[in-house]
């Protein structure tokens, strides 16, 4: 949908050179062109992934973007239809693992973040400054370091390998309350007058939280649910370390990276990777687009003051 250049621009320009309006029009056209080019740059890689996922002729990277013969072979191979036993891919299992993880994580993480952010934003209690600074300092340590010990503890509770899903859920959600900035920023914008009024009528802090603040915090709740849901889809480092080579316990990121890590793997599974990428991206994108209004509001409203 590239905008074609207006053909008789030069003649119009002389006629309206002086007036501010044409100056305005010219800059607008330039801005439109820039926007078109920039959006093409941003969208092309995804278009290429989709195109390559339909490539029928070879599974290794070839020099053509548009496939010579379209076929759903790659999508079928992902679900082991028409594929010998020895080339099977456990994509469905990885996909379900990640789905379970993201749903459970979304719920628990939202609960954690809301508790922390509401308390820090609304209530003035001793040690509030100390707690915020303490969490800031904790955030400065590289996360991977604690993974080494957490893997041993998780293996003690038999939550690595096949049932790495539960181990990872605990690890993702346990200290997720440290990411409270955005929602705290949002709670700061809710005026306090309503709370005082309710408090005066004898409502306990809990009722204030559940009946007044929470309903008004719908955007931030959805924002946190969404970001928490997106987390497990993108995590690679922790998942690879905890899964300990058990293909049944992998999430999508580790599984696909494992598939195309070796050069033989890349040659045999490159287009399968593209197809898997499309299958993973579509549902997450659709969910994201529906809740985009809240996401934008959360980011613009909250993140700024965090």
């Amino acid at each position, binding site marked *: 949908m590239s905008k074609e250049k207006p053909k008789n621009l030069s003649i119009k320009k002389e006629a309206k050179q002086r007036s501010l309006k044409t100056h305005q029009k010219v800059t607008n056209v330039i801005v439109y062109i820039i926007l078109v080019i920039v959006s093409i740059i941003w969208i092309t890689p995804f278009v290429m992934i989709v195109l390559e996922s339909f490539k029928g002729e070879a599974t290794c990277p070839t020099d053509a973007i548009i496939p010579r013969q379209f076929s759903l072979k790659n999508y079928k191979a992902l679900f082991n239809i028409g594929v010998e036993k020895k080339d099977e891919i456990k994509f469905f299992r990885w996909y379900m693992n990640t789905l379970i993880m993201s749903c459970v994580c979304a719920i628990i993480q939202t609960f954690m973040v809301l508790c922390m952010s509401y308390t820090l934003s609304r209530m003035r209690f001793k040690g509030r400054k100390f*707690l915020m600074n303490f969490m800031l300092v904790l955030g400065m340590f590289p996360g991977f370091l604690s993974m080494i010990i957490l893997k041993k503890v998780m293996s003690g509770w038999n939550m690595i390998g096949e049932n790495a899903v539960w181990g990872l859920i605990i690890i993702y959600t346990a200290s997720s309350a440290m990411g409270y900035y955005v929602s705290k920023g949002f709670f700061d914008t809710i005026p306090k007058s309503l709370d005082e009024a309710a408090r005066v009528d004898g409502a306990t802090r809990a009722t204030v939280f559940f009946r007044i603040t929470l309903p008004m915090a719908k955007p931030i709740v959805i924002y946190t649910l969404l970001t928490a849901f997106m987390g497990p889809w993108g995590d690679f480092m922790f998942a690879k370390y905890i899964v300990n080579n*058990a293909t049944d316990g992998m999430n999508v990121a580790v599984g696909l990276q494992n598939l195309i890590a070796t050069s033989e793997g890349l040659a045999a599974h490159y287009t399968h990777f593209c197809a898997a990428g499309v299958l993973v991206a579509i549902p997450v994108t659709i969910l994201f687009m529906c809740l985009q209004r809240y996401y934008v509001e959360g980011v613009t409203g909250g993140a700024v003051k965090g």
Partner: protein
Amino acid sequence: MKKRITKFIALAMALVMVLALAGCGKGNNNKNNNNNPTSSPDTPSDLSALAGTYDITVWVSESAGVADLTKTQIADFCKDNPGIVINAKVEGVTEAESASQMIASVEDGADLYCFAQDQLVRLVQADALAKLGTATQQKITELNDKTSVQAATVGGVMYCYPMTSDNGYFMFYDKSVIPENHLDSLEDLIADCEKAGKMFSMELTTSAWYNAAFFFATGCKSEWTIDSEGKITGVDDNFNSDNGVIALKGMQKLLKSKAFNSSSAGSDFSAAVPSAIVVSGTWSTAAVKEALGDNYAATDLPSFTVDGKTYHLGSYSGCKLIGVKPQNDTKKSAVLQQLALYLSNEKCQLERFKLVGWGPSNLNAQKNADVQADVALAALAKQAEYAVPQPQIHGSWWDIAKVYAVSAKDANTDEELKKALETYEATIKGLFEMSVNEKEAWTVIGSMNGDTNWTTDIPMVCKNDVWYSEAIKFVAGDAFKVRQGKSWDVNIGSDGKAGGPNFDVTEDGYGFVVFTYDKATNTGVIKLEKSSDVYGFSVIGTINGDTWSKDLTMEIQPDGSWLTKEAYELKAGDEFKARQGLGWDVSYGNGGDNYKVETAGTYYIKLTTDNKIELIAK
């Protein structure tokens, strides 16, 4: 402010404590280490004694199909031994990944896993491999070829089962591009590739395993001395020499060529810019055949010429191995050993050969008709003549040795090549930052005490400028020398001079090497004694008219017991003790206290191998 926050942590910690109770409940069961019953039936060979169900995890190579084949092979094993039920979780994992995951946490690692020989030393150091039982070791030595048996041994102890002995590399090439007569000259091959616009795939900058071929061609070597715990004690490496520079010059011919592609993947033949030549091993045969079809061909590596002299490229030859993780439960450990033995037997090796083309290490499997006829294995056989059996090498050598290739790629002058080799040598020497006294210490090394290829250093202790070795078991015909700092730079022979001939042992039995060294003249005197002031025993007491002041030396007998040199007059009521190294740390009499003589007489005093005093009448 403190009060409120501390209350939170108090509650938090209460929960932590409860979890700790649960957590360490599991933790403390290893304090009362489970000494399982060893009472068991008679013959270990019939496996009915091992009946039971076992849940195990197995990591095998990631090449397509190997995991499924292993599952069927395990099922066959269970069929052959009805009592044993194994539910195995088999995963396809790259070799490097399986070795580092094992070492990352041995406890969570797989029970049975495959790895390449270059990972063996690291795995032994991390206690990730269970030693093989003596009977199993004999069986393995009989069944497999010598190089694969040696590959499975570290410091004289066997830690794993050889599975293939084709872990070497040779040259696959595209018949339609490469003419037959160019096959033996690297320069022509590079020219052909460049002319055809195709690539020459050989992993020079990304793997030391391949680039060492140039150094073996010019006669360099890199051998490491390792003790049986897998601790690396020394290296004898002459890569940093003129031959080394020639090797790098040869390597530069390929490194600097436009066609050079640092990869060894069989699929390179069908890559975007296809290769005409790929240096790789039998694990790529399937991919190469698929890519090249009837242009598929393989031969040994070419030769290169530098300053008029031609050198045929060498190569490493090694093995893929199966290892068993140390188990706490005896029966499970025994079952795993039997399963590993089964998986490395002739039948399984042949099945693997048919599936992915891996050359077997089993002797009669090698005699199989298809194995002989296989093009790749024939090329490997041709290359075997120049191949160097891969010794046990320090884990980080593989990273360090990539250095000279990476620097050689950008180097233009000989000085730069020399500098690259110097950094290489300084770094590997750095791996053994010996302490000062380790450098000064003298050790006995030779073919004795079961160690036939001069690998283990027997430490010596210095007491007022004389070096004493512990008791060494000799057999007539053994030979040894003494050397300083576990390296051959300073060593003394039987003639007392530096670099002199070996000290030959003429009669069987134990002996102590006693050595005095004169630093100024760099000469020394080696003596083989039956007694020793440090390790030897002597008798002291109220005997022979002396009161606990004079030591009567004892000599070590071929059976390891001790006997005084002469017989002594002993009176009833005399008391004495036998003590070691003229000190009281180790001394025997009648158990802890002194030995009292009952009947007078002239006796030799004997200290038996289980430390009891006996009087033998003259």
